[in-house]
């Protein structure tokens, strides 16, 4: 057990919990959350009232539709073959390409739909920790739609992560073995008796459970034989274990010998204490800070093992611990792009983001949902920030705070061309007038620039800013006030606040 936090908790601590265990909120969201008290607030996150199916999945991800689509695909191929018989090879090739283009177009549309669907869910859910855990699992068991191609399968995987958000990590790992998206992603479906493919065996141990250094190359080779024979049925989008393609002979893994299959190897992995430690550490790093001390890690691993690898009890332990609210934790982490975008919308009280924004922001900031760069997931922390992404964050904040008109005017007047982003700002900004500043910065507040700045500082930073940052902001607000402090000037002040290194931390 970790030392527990005090009974009393401040509004800043409440904001910190809502930031880390969710995606933050508006000042009134934070005040309501603070009103619950620490224990109840944590409980509301770990045992949310919102049902799992509160947001229906895109209809094309249903069993029926997957089967239907498969039939359509086969029929399309047959029709194409028939059609091509009378054609010259060139014309036949063209017809084939056209058909492929149509399929790809549909894939792309579905990908965009899936991304928007999940983004909006993260933005509006009343079970934010569940979505945060879904994001955690998506990064942990990373699978890219780029390779899987069937968007329905990654959406179903997403649903699987949500269902296991607070449940057993072992059950989830077993489910991943039978998950069609993962099977396609790591080529497990082509790994057969006699000629195993080591991809899945390696990543299960290195990235999913034990961590580098806690297994041998021999363990990988042997486990790869156990992971043979798993096949995917594309018509139903399910994975089955074909015993004929499975290597049923003895394998020696971690010094134990038996005719393991995939399930058996995973059970074996979960008898190793390194697994609890590896995962407890990873969750701590995700929710609190990097490199926890060894004692804290021991305590967490203990809690995790006693909870039979259920993440709910572990998360409760983390969010009630004193260390979670320590100065070394609060505003010490760099926001990932999803956190940045969803959090900013919440702070600006925008419940319906500008069209295209969920997709554009992910592409520009380096976190495209359903498309992690590789099986290790995204690199976190400082890796999100470089000169390029930092400027892009500042400029996205400009779109959101100032609305489409202003930004487009600047782009046009300065003749900025945007390769690879041609229509995205327009897409992101179409019809976008900016947030409701009458609500965010009521007129009476604008009478006193210092109060205005402090109110916006709480909204955006949920804590005091160092004077070297607050000073210029107050000065700017005073200079801007002039005769009347309009919405346009408020927007400029907000943009300036968001164009700072401080805003990247939470």
């Amino acid at each position: 057990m970790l030392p527990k936090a005090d009974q009393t908790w401040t509004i800043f601590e409440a904001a910190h919990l809502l930031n880390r265990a969710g995606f933050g909120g508006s000042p009134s969201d934070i005040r309501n959350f603070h009103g619950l008290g620490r224990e109840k607030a944590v409980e509301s996150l770990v045992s949310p009232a919102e049902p799992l199916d509160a947001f229906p999945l895109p209809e094309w991800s249903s069993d029926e539709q997957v089967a239907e689509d498969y039939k359509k695909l086969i029929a399309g191929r047959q029709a194409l073959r028939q059609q091509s018989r009378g054609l010259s090879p060139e014309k036949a090739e063209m017809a084939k390409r056209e058909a492929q283009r149509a399929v790809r177009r549909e894939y792309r549309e579905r990908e965009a739909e899936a991304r928007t669907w999940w983004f909006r869910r993260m933005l509006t859910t009343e079970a934010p920790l569940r979505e945060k855990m879904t994001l955690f699992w998506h990064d942990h068991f990373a699978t890219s739609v780029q390779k899987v191609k069937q968007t329905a399968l990654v959406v179903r995987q997403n649903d699987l992560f949500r269902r296991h958000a607070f449940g057993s990590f072992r059950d989830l790992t077993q489910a991943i073995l039978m998950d069609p998206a993962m099977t396609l992603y790591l080529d497990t479906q082509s790994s057969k008796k006699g000629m195993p493919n080591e991809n899945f065996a390696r990543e299960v141990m290195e990235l999913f459970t034990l961590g580098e250094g806690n297994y041998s190359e021999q363990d990988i080779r042997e486990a790869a034989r156990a992971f043979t024979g798993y096949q995917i049925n594309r018509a139903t989008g399910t994975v089955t274990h074909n015993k004929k393609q499975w290597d049923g002979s003895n394998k020696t893994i971690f010094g134990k010998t038996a005719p393991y299959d995939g399930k058996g190897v995973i059970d074996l992995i979960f008898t190793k204490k390194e697994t609890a430690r590896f995962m407890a550490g990873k969750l701590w790093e995700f929710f609190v800070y990097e490199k926890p001390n060894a004692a804290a890690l021991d305590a967490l691993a203990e809690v995790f093992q006693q909870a039979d690898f259920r993440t709910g009890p572990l998360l409760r332990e983390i969010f009630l611990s004193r260390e979670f609210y320590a100065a070394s934790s609060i505003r010490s982490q760099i926001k990932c792009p999803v956190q940045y975008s969803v959090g900013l919308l919440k702070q600006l009280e925008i419940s319906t983001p500008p069209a295209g924004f969920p997709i554009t922001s992910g592409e520009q900031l380096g976190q495209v949902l359903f498309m992690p760069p590789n099986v290790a997931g995204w690199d976190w922390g400082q890796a999100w920030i470089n000169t390029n992404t930092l400027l892009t964050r500042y400029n996205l904040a400009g779109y959101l705070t100032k609305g489409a008109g202003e930004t487009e005017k600047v782009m046009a007047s300065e003749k900025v061309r945007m390769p690879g982003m041609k229509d995205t700002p327009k897409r992101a900004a179409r019809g976008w007038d900016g947030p409701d500043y009458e609500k965010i910065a009521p007129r009476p507040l604008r009478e006193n620039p210092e109060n205005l700045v402090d109110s916006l500082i709480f909204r955006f930073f949920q804590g005091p800013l160092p004077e070297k940052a607050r000073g210029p902001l107050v000065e700017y607000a005073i200079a801007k006030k002039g005769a009347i402090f309009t919405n346009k000037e408020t927007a400029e002040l907000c943009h300036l606040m968001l164009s700072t290194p401080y805003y990247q931390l939470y």
Partner: protein
Amino acid sequence: MKTRRDFLRTTVLGASAAWTVPMFVERTFGQLHEGARDIAIQPVTGKDDTILVVLQLAGGNDGLNTLVPYADDAYHKARPRIAKKEKDIIRLNDHVGLNSSMPFLGSMFKEGNLGIVQGVGYPNPNRSHFVSTSIWETADTSNRSATGWLGRYFDNACPGADPTVGISFNKTQPEAFGAAKNPGVCLNSPELYRWIHGGGEKAQAEEFFAELNQPDDHADDDMPADGGSIAMPAGGKTGGIAGEGNLAFLERVALDARVSSKTILELAAKHKTNVRYDGTPLARNLNLVSRMIAGGMPTRVYYVSHGGFDTHNQQANSHDRLLGQLDSALKSFFADLKQQGNDKRVVLMTFSEFGRRVAENASAGTDHGKASCLFLAGAAVKGGLHGVHPSLTDLSEGDIRHTVDFRSVYGGVLGDWLKAPKMKPILGAEYPKMGLIG
């Protein structure tokens, strides 16, 4: 020796405390160049300097189907489905040939401008993509270094250089750029590489922007500043500066972005080429590199990536296609450089985290292996085959054994091309010269 940060502070930031001072970015470069001249590290325009382009083949390139040992029976035996026949390759000698998807590299070889280093690897190789990439990027086979080999080059051989000494066209900073002082910059679209204000009274807003994005003078003290700054050791695996707290890190990146953005923006707009590039990300990024070079950036190292080499499954088509994209992008790039008259200033080096297993797997693909080949391209390169092709019968766990340590290749480009005075602080040791340049 002053750090770049000290330097910036004393020469520029010291003067820009109030918003009556003209916009920071306008003046920065002139002053930087003044300073640079004083400590004699690089010419103002960088026009005469040598340039290294590092091209990462991400995912583990199959060296055996890149530089094909077509005359070796063991090769055909191990790869009944995916082996390249003699008629499918560009013959280089009686033993090996290039994958025929690379006609441009084939002609470059014949002209003596392509060096192929065979059997490159390191002792006790690791088959994890991530660990092995990290080893190549840090040049530390124990995988403990928090800095990268190029970052250490910037730190040790380019003191006082501005942040554009290294430019990566990846969305994320490569681990190779990890540095104690200067990790270079990262950009995607030069046109958007700036702060867009989009409102009235631009100059005033930009001055405040500059002030808010100025490093904290006490950021190095590791002291939490009013809840805004929490010092925390960095992972060191991210291209950041080792041991830097997150706020100090953010402030430094913000400064680097401001310092580099104006120049990059101007240069990118200036150069036009009539060389056609493909639409692949690699070609697009090499096009950007050539624009930067044409514009006279003082950059010494550019970094680009070409991904997709993790060919576990049905390898033949996808691998050939990837090599074809590489070849075509390089063809455009070198033609462009030639037109600019900069072709003699540039050497391009490829690398990949590992090669593939000698034997194909059941999916007509290849699993993670060990040693592989790499390319050095450019007029200054000593063309031909370097090192010995490893045996396909004397294997280590099914993989070829390395015959060349990758750090001796790094040593060659650092010493003979980038003129790093000392190798020890960068690579940890001196490596035998291979004669790769000149």
